[in-house]
């Protein structure tokens, strides 16, 4: 399968660029980021709160089989323009990682295709690199399968 998602991380910089093109109209791509029951499906986490508006806030939580919380993250929306952009903060609770600033840009390519650009700014180069080395930090519940697949190669 072609590599649709690109991650651009320059050495020595405290930022990261994730880009991806979708076979979806830009309206659906945006909705996937704002409807809690949809976010839950593709992010694999529970959505405790998602107020999609300027000054609104969000909170996600993942629990293990015994119901213990293993991941919780939250943030605030600074900009929220339907089908165009979301600017938000991302903070993992109970972790040494500092809050991140995320700029999400939604672009219409054709009527049925769209592009998402995530520009993430970290507090330091070290924190960015640490997060890259620990992909499960960002999506703690899915890491095992991912890493196992990579190891099997």
């Amino acid at each position, binding site marked *: 399968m072609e*590599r*649709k*998602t*690109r*991650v651009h*991380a320059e050495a020595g910089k405290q930022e990261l660029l*994730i880009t*991806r093109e*979708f*076979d*979806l109209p830009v309206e*659906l*791509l945006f*909705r*996937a980021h704002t409807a809690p029951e*949809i976010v839950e*499906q*593709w*992010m*694999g986490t529970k959505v405790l709160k998602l107020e999609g508006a300027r000054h609104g806030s969000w909170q996600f939580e*993942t629990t*293990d089989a015994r119901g*213990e919380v*293993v*991941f919780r993250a939250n943030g605030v929306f600074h900009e929220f323009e339907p089908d165009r952009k979301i600017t938000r903060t991302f903070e*993992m609770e*109970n*972790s*040494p*990682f500092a809050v991140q600033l995320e700029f999400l840009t939604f672009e219409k390519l054709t009527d049925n295709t769209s592009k*998402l650009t995530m520009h993430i700014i970290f507090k330091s180069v*070290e*924190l960015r*690199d*640490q*997060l*890259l*080395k*620990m*992909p*499960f*930090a*960002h*999506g*703690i*519940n*899915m*890491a*095992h399968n*991912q*890493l*196992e*697949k*990579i*190891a099997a190669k």
Partner: protein
Amino acid sequence: MQSNGYIMNLRRDVFQAIADPTRRAILLLLASQSMTAGAIAANFDTARPTVSKHLQILTECELLEQEQNGREIYYHLNAVKMKEIADFIEPFRRMWDERFDKLEAVMIKLHTNK
């Protein structure tokens, strides 16, 4: 042959070790600092002996290292081992790729069912 089998076992153990969500949370906690078992346990609702067991498993498969500092034993990440399980960027890219694949599938399904 013998050594190959050994490496395979070791490798599987590492992935078994990080299969547990609490152990992943422990690794996350130690990402930028060394901590004692007590300080680590304070971050979980789990009983202290359970946390100790997790620390033992992580130490056995070399993801964590112990360091004696006076009377206290501090745990810290073994950077070399961590690098082994997460080759820079690619696992992170894959995570987002699979996540976005799912997003696409969910929205296509939703749209079709409308």
